């Protein structure tokens, strides 16, 4: 296994940081996508919402 830092237990460390990164990406991208979708639908449904700072 490639181990440039020479760490012992590298696979456990990599798995921990990888899980954290995956969960963070899931939460951040998921919330951004949800926000973008509902903003778009709200603008389409309510002409008064266009240009509003709420979105």
């Amino acid at each position, binding site marked *: 296994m490639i181990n440039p830092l020479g760490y012992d237990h590298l696979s456990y*460390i990599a798995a921990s940081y990888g899980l954290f990164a995956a969960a963070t990406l899931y939460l*951040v991208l998921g919330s951004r996508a949800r926000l973008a979708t509902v*903003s778009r639908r709200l603008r389409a449904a309510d002409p008064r919402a266009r240009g509003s700072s709420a979105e």
Partner: protein
Amino acid sequence: MDAGARVDALRRRFKPARRGHSLCFNPPPRPDTVTDVDAIPALAAQQTGPRPVRRTLHRFANPGRFLRLAARVQPWLTGPALLLTLLGLGWGLLFSPADYQQGDAVRIMYVHVPCAWLSTAGYAGLAAASLAALVWRHPLADMAAAEIGPVGALVTALCLATGSLWGKPMWGAWWVWDARLTSELVLFFLYCGHMMLIRAFDDAERGARAGAILALVGVVNLPIIHYSVQWWSTLHQGNSIGLTGSSTMSGSMLWPLAVAALGTTLGFAAIVVARLRAAVMERRLRGLLMAHAESVA
């Protein structure tokens, strides 16, 4: 299905807001109605001077005001969260020393401890929102509790998974039924139970109330998690960080951990605020669609 039946179906699915909040999430006002107390000069004049806590809470519970405030606050949470999390994790992963007993596996701590902290702090936030929903009938509180739940559950799962990844090389086991691990697992089940319970009723209000009660009952688990390593003999190590200067950890490990914990806490808040903004907008959208369906009917 004809238009009238569609309106009835929508009414059943999305009941109007509760007594006292009917102005908050309903469809946008007609020109002859007013939804904001501040827009009525006589009422606004009555609100001068010290306001009761409840009124102040409700003032900030106005969805429009919340959306404006949240849109302004969000970048100030997201930017520092990203910066501090990357700084703390990078510092811990690359520049902090290895532990004399655990070796490099101690670097898992910089992910595991912030997740553990957030799992309990998030539950405390969930319980506080539930309390506000039950006692003050705060219009945004139910929504806040519903949005904290999934994020808290994921963070708790992450805490359990990274703990397991840390436990295997150190203890030789992925899992042991000691008090700290078991109480953290119970916390995960509480989060999951809350998420399921609020969706288990046809009447969303009853679901929210049942979930709030469960969340408040589950608070008893928080001190159990914290003191489990003192009350019982556990394989999990004892507390090595104290807020009163009683930390037994070296500063070279404590600082990156503190930075990572602060960054992830801000990140948790940013994600919850984003989800809450989306939830408020979704409710507003449902109101608009219902109003449109009524006008067609």
